[in-house]
């Protein structure tokens, strides 16, 4: 197997194996975690009988391998669940039912995922523009005041927590200046314009933090490239600084930027909890934290798998981009 088809196939198989491994780990971790799941699920006022009933309903007394087997079965062929009064069918890629409120995890993910993706991809565009732009500027004005100023700002950016920047933005923009209403999530399909206006501040606060890292990385790898021999060649042929920076030095920074971006996009899908919480965005990260708190195993497994999926995909896309950016790279 060779070429792009082979690459996709190999990565596909790799992804499935990775996700299976993740799900096993989550199951085992939950199994060994202390705490009475049935009691937590049922609530503090439940009688022992009720707790026992819940445990039976949720199959909490089944051995680990059997529960995991049911989970796999659900994904491949679907699953029927009794909710006490009625039987509910959960069709093929079924990740189970939430212990809380009997909602199907697949449905839950489908409602949360667009929020997270909206946040992450919008912020990504911003952090790439801001970060790479700042990096190029400081590489260009290296050794001068502009660079020192930008270095200071980006350092401050790296050091500031997202809730500080977000809170300040919200107080100033929505509170003091009243330029924007306080953000609340509007779906892209409902009203694209409102979607963008409401997400502007979340995008900005997430992007500002991330951009700092990109600025530093871009600057560092451009300076590294600027010290290389081929830059000297173009200088010796009278090629201008603008061309040297924008054409030759920036190109050398592509690979590390792609790598960092893949990493950040992948992890932000499930990891932008602070931003989501601050701006009241009902995304994956927030839901995941909630599910962990109430030991809602099916939800946690489902969400973790989604996040894992995006991390793996983001890295595969990064590998393809590497090969496009640098012809010496061969996809394997």
């Amino acid at each position, binding site marked *: 197997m060779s070429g792009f088809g082979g690459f996709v196939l190999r990565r596909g198989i790799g992804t499935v194996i990775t996700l299976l491994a993740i799900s096993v780990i989550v199951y085992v971790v939950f199994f060994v975690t202390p705490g009475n799941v049935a009691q937590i699920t049922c609530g503090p006022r439940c009688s022992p009988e009720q707790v026992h009933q819940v445990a039976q309903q949720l199959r909490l007394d089944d051995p680990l391998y059997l529960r995991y087997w049911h989970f796999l079965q659900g994904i491949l062929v679907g699953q029927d669940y009794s909710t006490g009064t009625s039987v509910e069918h959960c069709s093929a890629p079924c990740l189970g039912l939430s212990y809380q409120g009997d909602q199907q995890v697949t449905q839950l993910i489908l409602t949360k995922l667009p929020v997270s993706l909206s946040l992450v991809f919008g912020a990504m565009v911003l952090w790439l523009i801001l970060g790479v732009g700042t990096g190029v500027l400081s590489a260009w004005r290296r050794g001068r005041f502009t660079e020192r100023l930008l270095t200071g700002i980006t350092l401050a950016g790296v050091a500031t927590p997202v809730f500080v920047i977000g809170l300040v933005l919200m107080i100033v923009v929505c509170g003091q200046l009243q330029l924007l209403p306080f953000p609340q999530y509007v779906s892209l399909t409902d009203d694209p314009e409102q979607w963008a206006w409401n997400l502007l501040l979340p995008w900005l606060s997430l992007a500002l933090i991330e951009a700092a890292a990109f600025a530093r990385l871009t600057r560092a790898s451009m300076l590294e490239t600027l010290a290389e*021999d081929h830059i*000297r*060649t173009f*200088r*010796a042929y*009278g090629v201008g600084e603008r061309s040297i920076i924008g054409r030759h030095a920036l190109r050398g920074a592509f690979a590390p930027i792609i790598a960092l971006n893949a990493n950040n996009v992948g992890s932000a899908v499930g990891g932008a909890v602070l931003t989501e919480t601050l701006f009241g965005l009902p995304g994956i990260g927030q839901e995941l934290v909630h599910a962990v708190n109430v030991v809602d195993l099916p939800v946690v497994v489902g969400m973790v798998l989604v996040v894992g999926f995006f991390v793996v995909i983001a890295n595969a896309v990064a590998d393809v981009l590497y090969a496009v950016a*640098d012809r010496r790279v061969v996809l394997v």
Partner: protein
Amino acid sequence: MSSVDGSMDVLVDGSADALVEVTDLTVGFGSLRAVDGLSFRLEKGAALGLVGESGSGKSTVASALLGLHRGTGADVGGSVRVAGVDVQEASDADLGRLRGGKAAMVFQDPLSSLDPYYAIGDQIAEVYRVHARVSRRAARARAVEVLDRVGIPDAVRRSRSRPHEFSGGMRQRALIAMALACEPDLLIADEPTTALDVTVQAQILDLLHTLRQETGMGLLLVTHDVGVAAESVDEILVMRHGRAVEHGPVGTVLGAPTARYTQDLLGAVPRVDARRTLSETSTETSSEASSAAPEVVLEATGLRREFGRGKRAFAAVDDVSLTVHRGETLGIVGESGSGKTTLGRMLVGLLKPTAGEIKPGGGVRPDVQMVFQDPVSSLNPRRSVGESIADPLRARGERDEEGIRGRVRELLERVGLEGAHYDRYPHEFSGGQRQRVGIARALAADPRVIVCDEPVSALDVTTQAQVVALLGELQRELGLALVFVAHDLAVVRQVSDRVAVMRRGRIVEQGPADEVYDSPQDPYTKQLLAAVPALDPEVAAQRRAARRELATA
């Protein structure tokens, strides 16, 4: 003298027309004076060679001609005029027009001197468009034209290749094509062939010669290799510590040098046509040994090593058999990719042969050690040299710290360093000293055979001569057998009793050194020997003619 010189006579008097005029040039980096009061002239169409060892300031001069030190913090004094432009005083725009337009530079390492991300044709076109107001398409056409001019086959298609898809020689041609694109008056070549194999080097030097004949451009050749200079220039300027040691016509400087340093330098250059001189003392021992049938210390039969699997498998070494006797030196020469390093690594046991076997002579397992090429990267920079030398002793299970320290001191002194150097770190040593440390480390395990993989190719000729002498001395005293792997035919002749010539993983010719060098049988060996630059310009011209015949035949 070559025909290019004809034009020189006419221009000699027109002092205002000098292509390059350097007066009292000094270049300082902090407290270091890289160039210290250098003056020289280069007439239109003439060729000057700047020759010197590393640190002599010769490359700094080349950069100064294009004003490349501007804005780097280097301290430049004196005056430099190139093609009518005062490099010190010129505006950035004027300097930009000079660079590439009037004076173009060809750099040493052709791989790192091109941008890895862009097609070669695009890079040449980019440079061309800096100097000529033409469309992208026209610039691209010009790139193809010059690539074709320097002998890149199928230039239209190859102009779309990235640098990594070119061989070393082709990359150097591409760089020369870039230089040609704007039809400069002066070509500055900074070690243009140092990274290349000897046959490719000959091709590039011949190409430079032809181009100069056709375009009449001047050449400033910067090189550490006296032979390369002898092949290509009319005048030589020998540099040391940033100053001119000797300056004159190439025949005079190389034929009858007056400066002491030039004499030493030329004396240290190994000659491919000179018989081994070291062997006078060792012939006694080896003749003694030969009467008593020399003991075989290492025997390899049918060695083969493959890399890669399945369809991509290829044999780096294929069916190689050799024997090494006690106290002798077996030289292995070959160009890059010939498999000589792979063979060396198998002999030491760093690589497992795919097929064939390596037998120690006399049934005892011989201890084979290795000396590596790059004395910088083959020593751990974070450990003292004493610790590095002690490694083989510790590996052998010695635990007596006092004993180890004593033995390491002994070894350091044995290779011409001081015992007190035990606690110093590699960066505190020069290249030659580091290689001595490498040799001491190889000696630590009491080997019977030492495989030296390009042990002197990273060193200056005078240092090279010292390290070679040290190896010869150790060999005589300890009865060591040496396997000397190198690409430099002259060095191999200088040290070897027997020689094996490798090509594409096979030994094409093997025998006593003098026989192989004086009457080579294999056509490849002949080709290699014809490519070695000669120190005598007249011999060089003859060789060039002979190469042309070999190529057309």
